[in-house]
């Protein structure tokens, strides 16, 4: 089932949580709402679920205006950040809750509820833990129970608020992959909120980047990562270096060095800011042309599979470069030595407008 958000605005007192947000989620997709805290992503999710009213605009579920329906009638599955499991019920009763509160006419009989619950427990690989209470479960297990509970009523839409936010790094990794696989199996339209760009890039079919109550970009993970629409998205998705340079005669310059750009430059001359990802800078001892910036090595730090090199370039700005370990070993950089940094794919923005 598809979700359409049309010109939705929401204020909490003086705080504008959402400003004129429009969005459409096609049926069967897994979409990430990505943004920093306070960007309005959770509010948007709660509005879709009917847990929050809108000040303006409307939400369409499957092409039908959802505003007359409250959370109970919308048939959306919602997985809360802290799971909101019923702690006085065991796993079985938690998952069965949605079925057992159905009106008598549509309520399945005891046996049908039982088989449905165990089918779901099997899906989340927790059949053997059916009689445990939430307090006896690990974080990852609670998360899976919360998901099974939401799925039990066969929701038309599945909404997840920071589904992995409260978990250990390792469990988070596993659950991410598991959620992706689960979605590939059951194909229910899903929206999840996250502030973790890696999570969004790895799990989602589409990413909606939000900032200050507005949608700033939406697209597939590679579109959003490779072609950020503005400096905010560039900065938010992945690590980035800034150059304060100039545009002269349509050419980007940094201290007399011409910089290569990923998008052809158009527009007027003047000061501009260049953005380049930390892995898009090459370091060499012998320059390879006019696009080199001289820099001094300030520090070399091994971070897991990567080696992070801190540089100070001739323009007086810090640069952070991520090298693969192989490359770093070949280079064997020493602190204090002079090197050449060659950035690739630099993007220039002037006053927040892309050139």
């Amino acid at each position, binding site marked *: 089932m598809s979700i359409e958000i049309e010109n939705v605005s929401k204020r909490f007192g003086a705080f504008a949580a959402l400003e004129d947000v429009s969005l459409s989620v096609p049926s069967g997709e897994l979409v990430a709402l990505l943004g920093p805290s306070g960007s309005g992503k959770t509010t948007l999710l709660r509005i879709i679920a009917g847990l929050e009213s809108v000040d303006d605009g409307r939400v369409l579920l499957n092409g039908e205006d959802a505003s007359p329906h409250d959370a109970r009638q919308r048939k959306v599955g919602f997985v809360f950040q802290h799971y909101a499991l*019923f702690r*006085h019920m065991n796993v079985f009763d938690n998952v069965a809750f949605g079925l057992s509160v159905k009106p008598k006419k549509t309520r399945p009989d005891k046996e049908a509820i039982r088989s449905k619950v165990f089918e779901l427990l099997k899906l989340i690989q927790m059949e053997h833990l059916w009689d445990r209470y939430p307090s*006896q479960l690990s974080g990852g297990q609670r998360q899976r129970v919360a998901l099974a509970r939401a799925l039990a009523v066969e929701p038309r839409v599945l909404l997840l608020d920071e589904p992995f936010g409260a978990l250990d790094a390792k469990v988070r990794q596993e659950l991410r992959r598991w959620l992706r696989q689960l979605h590939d199996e059951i194909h229910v339209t899903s929206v999840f909120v996250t502030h973790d760009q890696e999570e969004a890039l790895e799990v989602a079919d589409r990413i909606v980047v939000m900032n200050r109550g507005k949608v700033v970009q939406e697209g597939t993970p590679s579109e959003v990562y490779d072609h950020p629409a503005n400096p905010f998205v560039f900065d938010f998705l992945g690590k980035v270096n800034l150059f304060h340079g100039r545009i002269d005669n349509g050419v980007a310059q940094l201290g007399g060095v011409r910089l290569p750009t990923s998008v052809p430059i158009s527009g007027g001359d003047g000061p501009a800011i260049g953005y380049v990802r930390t892995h898009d800078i090459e370091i060499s001892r012998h320059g390879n042309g006019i696009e080199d910036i001289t820099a001094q090595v300030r520090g070399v730090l091994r971070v897991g599979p990567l080696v992070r090199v801190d540089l100070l370039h001739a323009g007086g700005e810090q640069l952070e470069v991520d090298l693969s370990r192989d490359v770093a070993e070949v280079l064997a950089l020493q602190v204090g030595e002079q090197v050449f940094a060659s950035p690739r794919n630099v993007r220039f923005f002037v006053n927040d407008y892309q050139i």
Partner: protein
Amino acid sequence: MARSLRKNGTAGWGTLPGFAPTMGYTLLCLVIVVLVPLSTLFFEAATLTWDDFVGAVAAPRVLASYRVTFGAALLAALTNAFSGVIVAWTLVRYRFPGRRMLDALVDLPFALPTAVAGITLAGIFASNGWLGKVLEPLGVKVAFTPVGIWLAMVFIGLPFVVRTVQPVLEEFDREVEEAAACLGGNRWQIFSRVVFPLMFPAVLTGFTLAFARAVGEYGSIVFIAGNMPMVSEITPLLIITKLEQYDYAGATAVAVVMLVISFMVLLALNLLQKWSRRYAEQ
């Protein structure tokens, strides 16, 4: 210093100074103020023969006083449980003018000396009092009847359920209700199957506290009860009556029964507290 802290850091002993003297003083006060006086009750009762003891605690007038006291206390605590849930719910969940003032006033029965409460209630429900004037022509007699005892007990037990349930409702995770709503539960189902079970231990705790307080209460009841033997005489009053007649043995015997019941209520409360934490994080 840091090393010695680390060495002892995980143990309860020895990390902070002053355990031995403070513990000593605490135990000393406890023994002198509480334990020795209370134990005299048992020693005094032990000087009675079994038959004397039974004769004192199971005389018809005494049995009647238990019936009045425990019966009224039970009814009053039930009244408190019911009204306390409504009051706590209203104070936490709704906003209306006068809410803060009422919230602060809920503790009045704690703060108001019991004798003051007693004469005031008796005054209101006496035949020329504010409510007595209205109720008596209708045939409802409150003052100087067991109904008056119940009423006074409801008054002094009023804060207990409200104050035990209130924090539970205040800290109630609204998301749990939202989750139940998303799963299709209607308002009544959410209350009866999710909210109420989670606040029930607090209701029960408040109920028990109100019951215990009502059973032992004296000051606010004697003025309104009428104190007719066999009809509206409460057990604490009977103890005083026996004492005034220099029947120390009889007073002691009845007091032992009351004390044992207090202990049992206390035990029940402790078990209740454990039980109410059974779903908590481990």
